[in-house]
């Protein structure tokens, strides 16, 4: 997939190590506008480290990162990047907060200290909740929703600041099969109708090949980055090499 605009994310020879242990080695990765990129790889392969670098929580020890054409050191428009953490689902379920209140927290940092939510902010919250199809639950306590519904609310929370890139870390863990399907429908809608680029981290290669239009396979190094069809043509043997251990993958035919 080629686009004329510069990529929204660019990793340029990035390496990172925790103490003496290499987590990422010489990563070169471009994410173009409009991507629906699946990031796969074994546990400990550096997926989380890559996300943390992208979010500016870690600084690369070698190489450089650009976001939306700007060096990450100078990048200020963090509201353009939404992040749904893997841990988002492990919140205190007894917490007395309505969907409206939870989604509002997605704007807290944008609004800034000593400023207050305005009517426009409130409309944005309602719009984001509407976008994920949960409008009738605006004033429901978040704890009384199902896991799949809560996941949608957390996506609404990151959508509320109008991001151009949405990063989701293992978003379907603990969600039943039927809701996983609905969840991917929502992602396709956001990607295609709302022009939001997606970076999806998952260990579930099968589902990923079915939905994403690009795959990046990460195990300390970037072993593969290309479109899903090319990834599906890889032999099990090649995949096992990436993973460092034998692997059997059921790849789905791309639906689009």
């Amino acid at each position: 997939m080629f686009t004329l605009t510069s990529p929204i994310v660019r990793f340029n020879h990035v390496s990172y190590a925790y103490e003496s242990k290499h987590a990422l080695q010489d990563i070169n990765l471009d994410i173009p506008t409009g991507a629906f990129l699946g990031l796969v790889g074994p546990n400990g392969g550096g997926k989380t480290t890559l996300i943390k670098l992208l979010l500016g929580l870690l600084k690369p020890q070698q190489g450089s990162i650009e976001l939306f054409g700007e060096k990450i050191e100078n990048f200020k428009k963090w509201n353009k990047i939404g992040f749904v953490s893997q841990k988002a689902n492990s919140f205190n379920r007894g917490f007395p907060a309505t969907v409206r209140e939870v989604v509002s927290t997605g704007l807290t940092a944008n609004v800034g200290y000593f400023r207050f939510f305005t009517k426009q902010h409130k409309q944005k919250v309602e719009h984001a909740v509407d976008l994920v199809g949960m409008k009738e639950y605006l004033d429901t306590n978040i704890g009384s929703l199902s896991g799949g519904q809560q996941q949608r609310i957390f996506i609404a929370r990151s959508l509320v600041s109008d991001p151009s890139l949405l990063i989701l870390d293992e978003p379907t863990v603990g969600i039943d099969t039927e809701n996983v399907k609905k969840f991917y429908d929502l992602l396709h809608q956001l990607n295609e109708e709302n022009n939001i680029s997606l970076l999806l981290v998952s260990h579930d290669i099968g589902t990923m090949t079915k939905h994403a239009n690009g795959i990046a396979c990460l195990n300390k190094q970037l072993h593969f980055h290309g479109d899903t069809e090319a990834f599906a043509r890889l032999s099990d043997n090649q995949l096992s090499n990436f993973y460092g251990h034998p692997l059997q993958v059921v790849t789905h035919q791309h639906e689009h």
Partner: protein
Amino acid sequence: MLNLFFTYDFLQNTFYTGLLIGLIGPLLGTFVVVRRLSLIADALSHVTLGGIAFGLFLEKKYGVLFLSPFYAGMGFSVVGSIFIERLRSVYKAYQELAIPIILSGGVGLSVIFISLADGFNTDLYGYLFGSVTAVSRNDLWSIVVITIIVLTVLFLFYKELFMLSFDEEHAVVSGIHSKRIHFIFIVLTALVISASIRIVGVLLVSALMTLPVAASIRIAKGFKQTIFFSVIFGELSVIIGLLTGYYFEIPPGGTIVLTSIIILILTIFSKKLWNYFTRKTVIQ
């Protein structure tokens, strides 16, 4: 009965103080409870006791009044809150460990200063269980100032505090200064505790911050409503507790806490009843 409280000056002081702590106790208490820090209120109240004992000791030994037990208690409480934060970052994996350390430290200090001041006296009894008669006009003014500080800071930092309480990781990723906000929060808690001790007493002050919230969480929808009901329940407990405490000559700490427990039980019970009946209509 109520008019008695407006006839005598000292009862007036108590009544107004009661209304103020009935507001700020449950208000801040809502944040304390949802962050699962209920026990920190207990730890801080015992540190405050250490400060009060220190103040009483100074008074008795040297007759000095530059540091009244009230202010000594407040000082100890704020310092204790800073210690708790330090300990929590030292023992990241055992965050609750800070509570027994600070709590026992507070009691240890109290024992030492109490015995140095030649043992128990009636003043100390009032500090332990609360008192209807102990609030001076000066205390009242200090508590008015504390109330204004607490309300202003909560108003200014409400959205950040709420975000931090709901999902700390998300707050940090978004660039909220979680450590600074948390620090402000814990110092506010220390202030509220030292303000409440005159009336509810050291041993029961955490109850005023947690029991109304425990009742409110059962029935409220959302966070703002939880705060709202907590404050209503807190004020009810303080007013009923103060009146009955005065009437039966019981320290108000006991009657206030018992009132909040009754409210708590009624809330749980009525919620069950409500669920029972609403479910029944669904079946029909």
